C-alpha cells in the first residue's frame, strides 16, 4: 500500500477540529493549556454551537486563547472575565458564554467576580486552569500553590503559617446556590482527557439549558514554572497536587 492509498477519507480515525486554528500555540511543550483548548474546541464543534459561543479570555498564559479557537472572543482585564461574561450572557441570553481562567486570575485578583457570578447563577461555563502557579509572569506563588511548593516568591516552599493555605476555590463554589455543576478534572492521561471532555460538554449543555453556573477545574501542569520536564510534571502533579485537589465531581445538580 502506498502512502497516498492510506490517506483516504475512509481511513481517517482522528482529525483536528477546524475550530482549532493553524496558529502555532505559544504554550510550552507539556503545558495543560493546549490540551484543554483542543477539548473545548472539539466540544463546541461536536455540539454545533460555534456560531453562538462567545469566549472570554483571561490575563495569564491563556491571554491569546482567541488566536487558537475560531469563535468570537473578548479579552478581559486580569480577573474580570466573569463580569464580562455576566453582561454578555444577560444581553445575549441565547448565546453560549464561557470564561477561561487561570488560578491567579480566578482565585486571587478575580475572587470577587468569580464568587458573585457563580452566586448569581449566571448561565455561563467557567473553565479554570489550576496549575498552582502564576505561569505567565514567570512562576510566582498562586493562591492555589500547595504547601511546601517552591515558586519564585516562595523560594523556601509555601509556608502556610506565613502565606496562608492553598485556596480550594472550587469547593467554596459548590456551596453557592447559583452553581449547578462543579467538577475537578485533569488532562495528563488518555483516561483523564476523556473524562475532562465529558465534563466540558456537560458544562456547555448546562449553559444552554440555563441551569446556572458550571465550573470545570483542570488540575494542570506548568512544567516551565515548576522547573520540571513534562513527564516529571505529570508525575509530580499526580503525586502532590491531587492530594490537595482530588479529582471528581464536587457538585452535580
Amino acid at each position: 500500500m502506498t502512502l497516498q492509498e492510506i490517506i483516504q477519507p475512509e481511513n481517517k480515525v482522528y482529525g483536528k477540529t477546524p475550530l482549532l486554528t493553524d496558529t502555532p500555540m505559544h504554550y510550552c511543550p507539556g503545558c495543560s493549556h493546549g490540551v484543554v483548548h483542543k477539548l473545548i474546541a472539539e466540544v463546541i464543534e461536536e455540539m454545533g454551537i460555534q456560531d453562538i459561543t462567545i469566549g472570554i479570555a483571561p490575563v495569564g498564559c491563556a491571554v491569546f486563547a482567541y488566536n487558537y479557537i475560531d469563535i468570537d472572543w473578548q479579552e478581559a482585564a486580569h480577573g474580570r472575565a466573569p463580569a464580562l461574561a455576566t453582561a454578555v450572557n444577560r444581553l445575549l441570553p441565547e448565546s453560549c458564554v464561557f470564561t477561561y481562567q487561570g488560578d491567579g486570575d480566578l482565585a486571587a485578583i478575580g475572587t470577587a467576580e468569580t464568587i458573585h457570578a457563580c452566586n448569581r447563577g449566571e448561565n455561563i461555563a467557567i473553565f479554570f486552569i489550576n496549575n498552582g502557579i502564576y505561569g505567565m509572569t514567570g512562576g510566582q506563588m498562586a493562591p492555589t500553590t500547595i504547601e511546601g511548593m517552591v515558586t519564585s516568591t516562595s523560594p523556601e516552599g509555601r509556608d502556610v503559617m506565613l502565606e496562608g493555605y492553598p485556596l480550594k476555590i472550587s469547593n467554596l463554589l459548590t456551596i453557592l446556590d447559583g452553581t449547578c455543576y462543579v467538577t475537578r478534572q485533569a488532562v495528563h492521561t488518555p483516561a483523564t482527557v476523556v473524562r475532562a471532555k465529558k465534563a466540558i460538554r456537560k458544562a456547555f449543555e448546562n449553559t444552554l439549558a440555563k441551569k446556572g453556573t458550571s465550573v470545570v477545574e483542570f488540575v494542570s501542569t506548568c512544567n516551565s514554572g515548576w522547573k520540571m520536564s513534562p513527564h516529571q510534571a505529570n508525575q509530580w502533579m499526580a503525586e502532590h497536587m491531587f492530594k490537595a485537589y482530588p479529582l471528581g465531581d464536587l457538585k452535580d445538580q
Partner: protein
Amino acid sequence: MEEVKLMKGNEAIAEAAIRCGCDGYFGYPITPQSEVLETLMVLEPWKKTGMVVLQAESETASINMVYGGAGCGKRVMTSSSSPGISLMQEGLSYIAGAELPCVVVNVTRGGPGLGTIQPSQSDYFQTVKGGGHGDYKLITLAPASVQEMADHLCLAFDLAFKYRNPVMVLSDGLIGQMMEKVQLPDYQPRLTNEQIREKYPWATLGKKGRDKQNVITSLELVSEEMEKVNNRLQQKYREVEANEVRYETFLCDDADYLLVAFGSSARICQKSVELLREEGIKVGLFRPITLYPYPVSQIHEYAKQVKGMLSVEMNAGQMVEDVRLAVNGLVPVEFYGRYGGMIPTPEEIVKALKEKLMA
C-alpha cells in the same frame, strides 16, 4: 410626545437612559448618585424595553460588565461617584484601548479618600488628564442642569458610538440631587441583534453569518504594532478635538473680564455675572460643555479682547490649568475655588474677581 417632569438629576439620568435605547445598566450604590440605580429598579425597564439592569458587586465589576456589554455592540452604561469612579480606572483604560463605546456618569463628591458626600468638581484631572493607564482620552460632557443630565446622556451614547470611545458625563452631587423641570426625550427603540450586526460589524454576538471571528482586545505585544494602535487612537482624538467642542457663552461679547466655569460652578457664576453687571462691571461667563475636547481656541479668542479671566471651580484649581494653556499668557488667569464639598456663593465670586483681577 415630549413630557415635562419635575425630577432630580439622578432620576433624569435613569429616565433618559431608558428612553434613548440603552441596553444595559450595571452599577453599585454610592451617595450622591444611588437614585440612578434605584430609579431604574422602580421603573423596571426590562418589562418595557428589555433593558437589562443589574446591581453589581463592585464598581470594578460594573465597569467590566460594561466592557462585556459594549463588546457585543450594546448601548451600556454605569454611574457612580468619585471613589467608585477611581475603582473603574483600569476598566476605562481597557475600554478605551479596545475602542468600545460606553457611557459613564460621575456624580462627583468631595475627596480625597472617602471624603464627603457633598458636591465637588475635584475629579476634573482624573477625567480629562487620564485617570487610568496609557495614552487615552475620555470624551467628557459637563451638564449644568437637570435638563442637561438627560440631554447629555443621550448625546454621550451618540458620541460613544460615533467614535467607539468611552464618554464620561462629569456631573456633581449638586446637579444629581437638585430637582428641576426636565423635558424628557422621546422613546427610541433599542437596536435588534440583527441591526447591531449590520451597524457594528466588530461586535461579538457570535460568529453567525461571518467567516472571520471577532475579537475584542486591547493587547498587542509587538511594539511596532502597538505604536500603530496608539497612532490610530491619537488620530481619532484629533478628529474629536476638531469636531466635538461644545461651549456656551453668557454676555461675553462686550466683556472686560470672563468667568470660566463648568457644571454647577457655571450656574453660580451666572448669578455673579448679573451682580457685577448691575454694578456696571462688564463681565461674561464662558462655560465649557465638553471638558475634553476642551474649547481651547474659543477661549484663546476671548483672551484677545478681555483684561483677565477667573476660573471658578469646586476644587483646589484644576481646570484653571487648561484655561491658562488656552490663554497662553495673553492676559492674567486667576483661580477661585471652594472644595471639600463647599459651594461658592455668587457674592464670594464677585469679591474674588475684584480682588484678583481688578485690584
